[in-house]
Protein backbone atom coordinates (compact mmCIF):
# COMPACT_ATOMS: atom_id res chain seq x y z
CA UNK A 1 0.00 0.00 0.00
CA UNK A 2 1.01 3.53 0.33
CA UNK A 3 4.38 4.35 1.79
CA UNK A 4 5.05 5.27 5.39
CA UNK A 5 6.26 8.77 5.83
CA UNK A 6 7.05 11.07 8.68
CA UNK A 7 4.75 13.97 9.27
CA UNK A 8 4.65 16.80 11.75
CA UNK A 9 1.28 17.97 12.82
CA UNK A 10 0.72 21.16 14.79
CA UNK A 11 -2.72 22.28 15.80
CA UNK A 12 -3.94 25.23 17.76
CA UNK A 13 -6.83 24.62 20.10
CA UNK A 14 -9.15 27.44 21.05
CA UNK A 15 -8.33 29.05 24.41
CA UNK A 16 -11.89 28.38 25.52
CA UNK A 17 -11.35 24.64 25.39
CA UNK A 18 -10.62 22.98 28.69
CA UNK A 19 -7.54 20.87 29.34
CA UNK A 20 -9.81 17.89 29.20
CA UNK A 21 -10.96 18.76 25.71
CA UNK A 22 -7.37 19.20 24.59
CA UNK A 23 -6.37 15.78 25.86
CA UNK A 24 -9.56 14.39 24.36
CA UNK A 25 -8.49 15.66 20.94
CA UNK A 26 -5.09 14.11 21.44
CA UNK A 27 -6.74 10.80 22.37
CA UNK A 28 -8.84 10.94 19.21
CA UNK A 29 -5.75 11.38 17.08
CA UNK A 30 -3.98 8.62 18.94
CA UNK A 31 -6.90 6.30 18.32
CA UNK A 32 -6.76 7.09 14.63
CA UNK A 33 -3.05 6.41 14.57
CA UNK A 34 -3.49 2.97 16.10
CA UNK A 35 -6.41 2.26 13.77
CA UNK A 36 -4.25 3.01 10.73
CA UNK A 37 -1.43 0.94 12.20
CA UNK A 38 0.87 3.94 12.37
CA UNK A 39 3.29 5.17 14.98
CA UNK A 40 3.27 8.25 17.16
CA UNK A 41 6.91 9.29 17.40
CA UNK A 42 6.60 12.29 19.65
CA UNK A 43 3.98 14.52 21.13
CA UNK A 44 4.53 17.89 22.70
CA UNK A 45 2.13 20.27 24.32
CA UNK A 46 3.47 23.79 24.11
CA UNK A 47 0.71 25.07 26.32
CA UNK A 48 -0.96 28.41 25.93
CA UNK A 49 0.82 30.82 23.65
CA UNK A 50 -0.02 34.25 22.44
CA UNK A 51 -0.93 34.29 18.74
CA UNK A 52 1.00 36.64 16.49
CA UNK A 53 -2.32 37.80 15.05
CA UNK A 54 -5.92 37.06 16.03
CA UNK A 55 -7.50 33.93 14.61
CA UNK A 56 -11.29 33.78 14.86
CA UNK A 57 -11.03 36.66 17.33
CA UNK A 58 -8.86 34.59 19.65
CA UNK A 59 -5.69 36.17 20.92
CA UNK A 60 -4.09 33.04 22.27
CA UNK A 61 -4.30 29.31 21.83
CA UNK A 62 -3.00 25.98 23.00
CA UNK A 63 -0.41 24.51 20.67
CA UNK A 64 0.06 20.78 20.32
CA UNK A 65 2.72 19.11 18.19
CA UNK A 66 2.57 15.48 17.09
CA UNK A 67 5.22 13.70 15.06
CA UNK A 68 3.70 10.76 13.22
CA UNK A 69 5.07 7.94 11.09
CA UNK A 70 2.21 6.91 8.90
CA UNK A 71 0.60 6.80 5.52
CA UNK A 72 -1.05 9.56 3.56
CA UNK A 73 -4.48 8.02 4.18
CA UNK A 74 -4.08 8.49 7.90
CA UNK A 75 -3.00 12.07 7.49
CA UNK A 76 -5.89 12.72 5.19
CA UNK A 77 -8.31 11.48 7.82
CA UNK A 78 -6.65 13.46 10.62
CA UNK A 79 -6.67 16.56 8.46
CA UNK A 80 -10.36 16.12 7.75
CA UNK A 81 -11.19 15.66 11.43
CA UNK A 82 -9.23 18.72 12.47
CA UNK A 83 -10.90 20.80 9.83
CA UNK A 84 -14.29 19.77 11.05
CA UNK A 85 -13.47 20.22 14.73
CA UNK A 86 -14.70 23.45 16.20
CA UNK A 87 -12.11 23.62 18.96
CA UNK A 88 -9.19 23.54 16.58
CA UNK A 89 -8.71 27.02 15.19
CA UNK A 90 -5.70 26.25 13.01
CA UNK A 91 -3.63 23.25 12.06
CA UNK A 92 -0.67 22.46 9.86
CA UNK A 93 0.62 19.16 8.57
CA UNK A 94 4.12 19.03 7.13
CA UNK A 95 5.85 16.04 5.63
CA UNK A 96 9.33 16.10 7.11
CA UNK A 97 11.06 12.85 6.16
CA UNK A 98 12.55 14.18 2.93
CA UNK A 99 13.82 17.39 4.46
CA UNK A 100 15.30 15.61 7.45
CA UNK A 101 16.97 13.10 5.18
CA UNK A 102 18.42 15.89 3.06
CA UNK A 103 19.73 17.59 6.19
CA UNK A 104 21.25 14.34 7.38
CA UNK A 105 22.92 13.86 4.01
CA UNK A 106 24.37 17.35 4.10
CA UNK A 107 25.73 16.72 7.56
CA UNK A 108 27.43 13.45 6.65
CA UNK A 109 28.85 14.97 3.48
CA UNK A 110 30.53 17.63 5.53
CA UNK A 111 32.04 15.12 7.94
CA UNK A 112 33.44 12.73 5.33
CA UNK A 113 34.72 14.40 2.17
CA UNK A 114 34.36 12.16 -0.88
CA UNK A 115 38.00 12.07 -1.98
CA UNK A 116 41.27 13.86 -1.37
CA UNK A 117 41.84 15.31 -4.81
CA UNK A 118 38.22 16.06 -5.63
CA UNK A 119 37.23 18.65 -3.02
CA UNK A 120 40.00 20.99 -4.12
CA UNK A 121 38.92 20.68 -7.74
CA UNK A 122 35.30 21.25 -6.82
CA UNK A 123 36.15 24.31 -4.79
CA UNK A 124 38.20 25.83 -7.58
CA UNK A 125 35.36 25.19 -10.02
CA UNK A 126 32.79 26.69 -7.65
CA UNK A 127 34.87 29.82 -7.20
CA UNK A 128 35.00 30.38 -10.92
CA UNK A 129 31.31 29.81 -11.32
CA UNK A 130 30.48 32.34 -8.67
CA UNK A 131 32.57 34.99 -10.34
CA UNK A 132 30.79 34.51 -13.62
CA UNK A 133 27.38 34.58 -11.95
CA UNK A 134 28.08 37.89 -10.29
CA UNK A 135 29.16 39.49 -13.52
CA UNK A 136 26.00 38.45 -15.28
CA UNK A 137 23.81 39.67 -12.46
CA UNK A 138 25.45 43.10 -12.25
Amino acid sequence: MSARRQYELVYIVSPEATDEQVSDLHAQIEALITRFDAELVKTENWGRRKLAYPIQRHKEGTYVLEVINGTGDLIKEIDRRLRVSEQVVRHLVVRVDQELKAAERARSRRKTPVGVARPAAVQAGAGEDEGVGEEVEG
Partner: protein
Amino acid sequence: MRERSGGRGGRGGGGRRGDRDRDREGGQRRPMFRRRKVCKFCADKIDYIDYKDTRMISAFVPERAKILPRRISGVCATHQRKLQAAIKRARHLALVPFVVE
Protein backbone atom coordinates in the same frame (compact mmCIF):
# COMPACT_ATOMS: atom_id res chain seq x y z
CA MET B 1 5.50 39.26 -24.44
CA ARG B 2 5.44 38.23 -20.88
CA GLU B 3 9.09 37.35 -21.01
CA ARG B 4 10.01 40.74 -22.36
CA SER B 5 8.12 42.71 -19.76
CA GLY B 6 9.61 40.51 -17.05
CA GLY B 7 13.08 41.19 -18.35
CA ARG B 8 12.48 44.89 -18.44
CA GLY B 9 11.09 44.86 -14.93
CA GLY B 10 14.12 42.99 -13.72
CA ARG B 11 16.50 45.37 -15.37
CA GLY B 12 14.56 48.38 -14.11
CA GLY B 13 14.66 47.01 -10.58
CA GLY B 14 18.38 46.46 -10.81
CA GLY B 15 18.89 49.98 -12.08
CA ARG B 16 16.88 51.49 -9.30
CA ARG B 17 18.84 49.64 -6.72
CA GLY B 18 22.10 50.73 -8.30
CA ASP B 19 21.00 54.37 -8.36
CA ARG B 20 20.04 54.34 -4.76
CA ASP B 21 23.41 52.92 -3.81
CA ARG B 22 25.20 55.52 -5.85
CA ASP B 23 23.17 58.38 -4.38
CA ARG B 24 23.86 57.29 -0.88
CA GLU B 25 27.56 56.91 -1.47
CA GLY B 26 27.86 60.10 -3.53
CA GLY B 27 25.89 62.19 -1.05
CA GLN B 28 27.93 61.19 1.95
CA ARG B 29 31.21 61.51 0.06
CA ARG B 30 32.80 58.54 1.67
CA PRO B 31 32.94 54.94 0.71
CA MET B 32 30.16 52.90 2.29
CA PHE B 33 31.44 50.49 4.84
CA ARG B 34 30.32 47.03 3.89
CA ARG B 35 30.91 43.98 5.95
CA ARG B 36 31.50 40.90 3.90
CA LYS B 37 28.32 38.96 4.19
CA VAL B 38 28.39 35.29 4.98
CA CYS B 39 25.34 33.08 5.04
CA LYS B 40 24.46 32.59 8.69
CA PHE B 41 23.10 29.12 8.09
CA CYS B 42 26.16 27.95 6.16
CA ALA B 43 28.47 29.37 8.82
CA ASP B 44 26.52 27.76 11.68
CA LYS B 45 26.07 24.55 9.69
CA ILE B 46 22.31 24.54 10.02
CA ASP B 47 20.89 22.10 7.48
CA TYR B 48 17.27 22.15 8.49
CA ILE B 49 15.49 25.40 9.21
CA ASP B 50 12.72 24.59 11.62
CA TYR B 51 9.51 26.58 11.34
CA LYS B 52 8.88 25.94 15.03
CA ASP B 53 12.02 27.75 16.09
CA THR B 54 10.50 31.17 16.55
CA ARG B 55 13.63 32.73 17.91
CA MET B 56 15.69 31.92 14.84
CA ILE B 57 12.98 32.83 12.38
CA SER B 58 12.08 36.15 13.93
CA ALA B 59 15.65 37.29 13.32
CA PHE B 60 14.72 37.33 9.61
CA VAL B 61 11.44 39.17 9.90
CA PRO B 62 12.16 42.77 10.94
CA GLU B 63 9.58 45.17 12.41
CA ARG B 64 7.16 45.18 9.52
CA ALA B 65 7.30 41.38 9.54
CA LYS B 66 8.46 41.20 5.95
CA ILE B 67 10.95 38.54 4.99
CA LEU B 68 14.43 40.03 5.11
CA PRO B 69 15.85 40.03 1.56
CA ARG B 70 19.05 38.15 1.15
CA ARG B 71 20.82 41.10 -0.39
CA ILE B 72 20.71 42.50 3.13
CA SER B 73 21.02 39.41 5.27
CA GLY B 74 23.59 37.72 3.04
CA VAL B 75 21.89 34.35 3.32
CA CYS B 76 22.74 32.02 0.44
CA ALA B 77 20.07 31.11 -2.11
CA THR B 78 19.58 27.58 -0.81
CA HIS B 79 19.05 28.67 2.74
CA GLN B 80 16.94 31.66 1.81
CA ARG B 81 14.58 29.29 0.02
CA LYS B 82 14.34 27.05 3.06
CA LEU B 83 14.01 30.03 5.36
CA GLN B 84 11.22 31.43 3.25
CA ALA B 85 9.27 28.18 3.49
CA ALA B 86 9.85 28.06 7.24
CA ILE B 87 8.66 31.64 7.71
CA LYS B 88 5.50 30.95 5.73
CA ARG B 89 4.76 27.89 7.82
CA ALA B 90 5.38 29.84 11.01
CA ARG B 91 3.05 32.57 9.79
CA HIS B 92 0.28 30.09 9.19
CA LEU B 93 0.60 28.93 12.78
CA ALA B 94 0.58 32.50 14.09
CA LEU B 95 4.07 32.09 15.48
CA VAL B 96 5.20 35.01 13.35
CA PRO B 97 2.93 37.82 12.14
CA PHE B 98 2.02 38.44 8.51
CA VAL B 99 1.95 42.20 8.95
CA VAL B 100 2.58 44.66 11.73
CA GLU B 101 0.59 47.85 11.50
